């Protein structure tokens, strides 16, 4: 045993640098495994705890006409309390399942913060409990005070508010500052900044493809203050219900639907469909995001450890072949096969253990940065508690050791002959020669092309000399090229889709979004065009959220419906049709992800759930009672474009089916002559001065694109790191295979030098060999790169909000090749330098490989 350990030590000591490169690859794999998987566990646990501790609602139900006026919009607080209590009494089974409920006001409105307009939502809850006593936290959907104080007993009589963390962070708001809320700009004092599990991600709705605190901020008010502000004394418009723990989604949905039916049947109230906790936008997105991180955390270590196994396999294979005679001698002396296998396996295990230890330690260190970094990236106000997850650490160690076993056992077992004589007879330099002329050379001969002996013949033959080694080099190149091309392909695909969207699809310079829907939009548009200088064209759209349902499959999908003014010619939207070829204002145009999710195609019929006006309250702004109706549309086009969850219908058609009065629209798009930033600013000021009371947002196309690019920035940085990482990893593997290759050829290289071959020719030969390997690897690498790009973007990231057209450009192909090739040249430099300084006298005598 001591002898075996000594032999292992000697072998490692003789190859320490090369072995260390593989240890480092394993270390990186284990680090990423530990870091990412543990971060996933931390985040999941943190948010689960945050949701539990703050009593996140199991389901929420809002009035059918949320944000509107009249009986469908508001319900009396006291009455609703009685009704729910009655429901619980009538349905004793449900009573025990409802832990608590909260009646709230949720209302989209505008804020004025430091003189600037901001849109968002107020969320209001009572500061009193059911007994009428003061409480610091609501029973359902609680929050965490990050700075400032809770409401006091007197708060309900005061204009005070809590600001949600994302909004506070964006404006750098602090307690004791004031913001103005609503059209009437009532000042409210900020008493605290809070983190709410309901808004972990600052997401207003699914339709908001670019959640930003600048466009959607949340302000919490005492219920009474909100009622006063909105002029709805004693009213609420939302029920949030907390059920007993551990109920299935089906059970939760059943209770929600029973409650809705009870209230609608017995008290003639109207509610929109209940939203289960799993479908709550912020919660849903967060889970999606964490799940993606987890999948990435599994896939990335698999790729890296796969490379390590490949590297170990090649290294051990060559080592065993080189020492086959020694093995034969050992066998002849009486060592059994098991002992010899153990010795080589010991080397592989030491490499794996060193890598695993480094990886585990790095992983633990990395952990304290990774989870907080991730949380910071999403501006999530709940910091995960960083703890060592021993099951994951142990799993990492097991995976690391398995890497050593798999990478080491098979080549060693396969290379040790059962009989010592076979090993003793063995001449490695002959063993690694196939004795055949490569096919490519035979093909060239058919065309009368004979390669010169001192030309390309030698490097070409060398490629086929040891297929396993060549395969290993090609494998390293494939990994590098595929990771680089995937990384750059991601960036390019996103940029290209963005550019296409903003430069081709959307042909406008300035966009105005209104808070309230005006019904005289064409008149407003005409006025702007006539009165505002430089406006060359103008159009308007009506945007709203809706649900599309497939008639065939009954699948449903939440989309943003754009009622498109089809008379504007070019301004509105240039479609990139995947099916269908023309815009038909009578039909419906769907984006590819929606069509795929619903399993529908061109000319199929779908239902669009739209609000239908039942009772008009006022025309300007449009205030009315609505009911949701399913209108059947025929799909006249399927478009492949950046905005993934979108459906287009003709504006006139939409107005007709929704029974809207006048010409309502909530978005105006302007085309400006010579749209310099100064000119756009000037026009913005002009429009704000005239229509500011109702302008929710006014942004230039460049600003909107910039905002999106800023959102992508972090992703781009991660992708660049992946690319650099890929080159380093492949350099390590290529270094090893080149080293082995040169070591195998040492005697031949020495012979070549002895008979008069100069260094330049030798360097050329080896460079040609590696260039061919890089070229072959690049071809396969690009194929794998494309598969990985597709896999990450379509399967793992599954970003249906953004429809990214995937491609790998010629530039990326070139960059992938050049980056990898530079890596190869660097990797070949050191072993080559060593080889060129060979002691020819010694090397020509050696029989080692």
């Amino acid at each position: 045993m001591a002898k075996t350990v000594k032999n292992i030590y000697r072998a490692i000591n003789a190859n320490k640098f090369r072995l260390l490169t593989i240890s480092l690859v394993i270390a990186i794999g284990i680090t990423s495994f530990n870091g990412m998987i543990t971060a996933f566990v931390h985040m999941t646990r943190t948010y689960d705890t945050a949701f539990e501790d703050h009593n996140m609602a199991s389901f929420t139900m809002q009035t059918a006409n949320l944000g509107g006026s009249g009986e469908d919009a508001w319900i009396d607080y006291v009455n609703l309390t009685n009704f729910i209590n009655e429901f619980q009494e009538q349905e004793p089974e449900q009573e025990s399942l409802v832990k608590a409920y909260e009646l709230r006001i949720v209302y989209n409105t505008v804020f004025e913060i430091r003189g600037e307009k901001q849109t968002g939502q107020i969320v209001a809850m009572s500061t009193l409990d059911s007994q009428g006593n003061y409480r610091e936290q609501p029973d359902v959907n609680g929050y965490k005070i990050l700075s400032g104080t809770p409401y006091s007993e007197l708060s309900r009589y005061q204009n005070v508010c809590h600001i949600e963390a994302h909004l506070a962070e964006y404006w750098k708001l602090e307690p004791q500052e004031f913001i103005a809320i609503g059209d009437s700009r009532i000042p409210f004092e900020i008493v605290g900044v809070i983190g709410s599990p309901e808004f972990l991600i600052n997401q207003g709705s699914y339709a908001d493809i670019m959640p930003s605190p600048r466009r959607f901020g949340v302000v919490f008010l005492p219920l009474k203050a909100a009622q006063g502000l909105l002029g709805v004394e004693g009213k609420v418009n939302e029920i949030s219900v907390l059920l007993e723990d551990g109920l299935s989604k089906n059970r939760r949905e059943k209770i929600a639907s029973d409650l809705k039916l009870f209230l609608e049947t017995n008290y003639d109230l109207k509610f929109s469909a209940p939203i289960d906790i799993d479908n709550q936008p912020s919660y849903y997105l967060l889970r999606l995001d964490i799940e993606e991180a987890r999948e990435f955390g599994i896939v990335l270590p698999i790729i890296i450890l796969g490379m390590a196994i490949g590297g170990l396999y090649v290294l051990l294979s060559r080592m065993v072949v080189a020492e086959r005679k020694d093995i034969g001698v050992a066998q002849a002396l009486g060592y059994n096969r098991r002992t010899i296998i153990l010795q080589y396996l010991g080397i592989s295990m030491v490499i794996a253990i060193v890598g695993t230890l480094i990886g585990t330690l790095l992983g633990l260190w990395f952990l304290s940065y990774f989870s907080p970094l991730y949380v910071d990236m999403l501006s999530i106000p709940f910091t995960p508690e960083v703890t060592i997850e021993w099951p994951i650490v142990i799993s990492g160690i097991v995976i690391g050791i398995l890497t050593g076993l798999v990478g080491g056992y098979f080549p060693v077992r396969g290379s040790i002959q059962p009989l010592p004589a076979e090993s003793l007879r063995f001449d490695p330099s002959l063993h690694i020669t196939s004795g055949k002329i490569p096919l490519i050379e035979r093909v060239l001969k058919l065309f009368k092309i004979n390669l010169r002996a001192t030309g390309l013949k030698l490097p070409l033959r060398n490629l086929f000399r040891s297929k396993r080694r060549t395969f290993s080099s090609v494998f390293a190149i494939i990994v590098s090229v595929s990771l680089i091309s995937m990384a750059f392909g991601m960036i390019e695909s996103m940029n290209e889709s963005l550019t296409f969207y903003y430069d081709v699809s959307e042909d406008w310079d300035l966009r105005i979004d209104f808070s309230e829907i005006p019904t005289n939009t064409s008149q407003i548009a005409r006025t702007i065009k006539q009165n505002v200088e430089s406006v060359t064209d103008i159009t308007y759209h009506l945007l709203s959220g809706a649900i599309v349902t497939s008639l065939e499959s009954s699948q449903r999908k939440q989309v943003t419906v754009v009622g498109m003014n089809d008379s504007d010619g070019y301004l509105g939207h240039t479609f990139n049709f995947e099916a269908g070829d023309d815009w038909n204002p009578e039909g419906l145009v769907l984006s590819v992800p929606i069509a795929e999710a619903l399993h529908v195609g061109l000319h199929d019929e779908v239902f669009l759930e739209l609000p239908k006006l039942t009772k008009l309250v006022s025309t300007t702004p449009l205030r009315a009672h609505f009911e949701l109706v399913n209108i059947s549309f025929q799909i006249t086009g399927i478009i492949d474009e950046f905005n993934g969850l979108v459906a287009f219908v003709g504006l006139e058609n939409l107005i007709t089916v929704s029974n809207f009065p006048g010409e309502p629209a909530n978005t105006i798009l302007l085309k400006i002559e010579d749209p310099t930033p100064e000119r756009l600013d000037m026009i913005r000021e002009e429009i704000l001065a005239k229509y500011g009371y109702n302008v929710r947002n006014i942004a230039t196309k460049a600003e909107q694109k910039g905002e999106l690019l800023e959102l992508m920035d972090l992703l781009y940085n991660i992708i660049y790191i992946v690319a650099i990482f890929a080159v380093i990893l492949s350099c390590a593997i290529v270094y090893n295979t080149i080293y082995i290759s040169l070591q195998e050829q040492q005697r031949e290289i020495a012979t070549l030098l002895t008979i008069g071959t100069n260094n330049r020719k030798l360097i050329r030969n080896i460079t040609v060999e590696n260039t061919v390997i890089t070229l072959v690897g690049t071809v396969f690498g690009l194929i794998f790169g494309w598969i990985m790009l597709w896999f990450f973007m379509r399967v793992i990231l599954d970003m249906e909000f953004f429809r990214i057209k995937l491609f790998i450009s010629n530039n990326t192909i070139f960059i992938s090749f050049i980056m990898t090739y530079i890596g190869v040249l660097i990797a070949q430099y050191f072993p080559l330098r060593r080889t060129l300084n060979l002691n020819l006298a010694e090397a020509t005598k050696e029989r080692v490989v």
Partner: protein
Amino acid sequence: MVFIEISDLSKAYMLGETKTVALNGVDLEINKGELVILYGPSGAGKTTLLNMIGGLDIPSSGTITVDEIPVSTLSAKWLTTYRKQKIGVVFQFFNLLSRMNTLENIEYAIDLIGVKQTDGSTSFNGKIIREKAQEYLEKVGLKDRMHHFPAQLSGGEQQRVSIARALAKEPEILLADEPTGNLDYKIGRNVLEIMEVMTGKAQNRTVIIVTHNPAICPLGDRVVRLSDGKVAENYTQKYTPAKELYW
């Protein structure tokens, strides 16, 4: 006429932590066209001396001059040129390029220096190189094996290819390090006969053969016996044809 002049040549190197003196003040003169046998026991320094003459190694001190070229002071680049143009080497373990067949092994060597034409020019034409390679293979009796790879040849055949490769460059000096060391008597003698024919006096080629086998000594015009890194004996003799050697 002195062709190779060796003066006070020493070579020492570290073997682990032990300093080993391989050559210790060797003085030697070799004439052009001489067949020299460097003879001695293992560790006497004969291979080291051969390597110095061949420009495969550099001395610790002393000088080697070959055809007025100061070999011991040449840079690595010029040593390569020297080896290419002046030296042919036959190795104990043949050292054929395993990826190339018999013919290609010889072509490779010829391709480095080209083929001298009757008009004095040098041709690198592939066909001419191939013809010359075939000519040398024929000389060593292996024309029928020209498409075989080294792995498909016997030890004697490999050594014959090695000789053909070394001589196909038409070097002025042929160095052979234990050319029969890895072969049995019959094959070894056959190899020496081929060397004898191909390096005959008419070629005016200087041949240095390293051997530890005293039975080979009669083959040389001159025998230099080395012992402990020094020249112990240096004498000329009437050479004995290879076919008369027995061991």
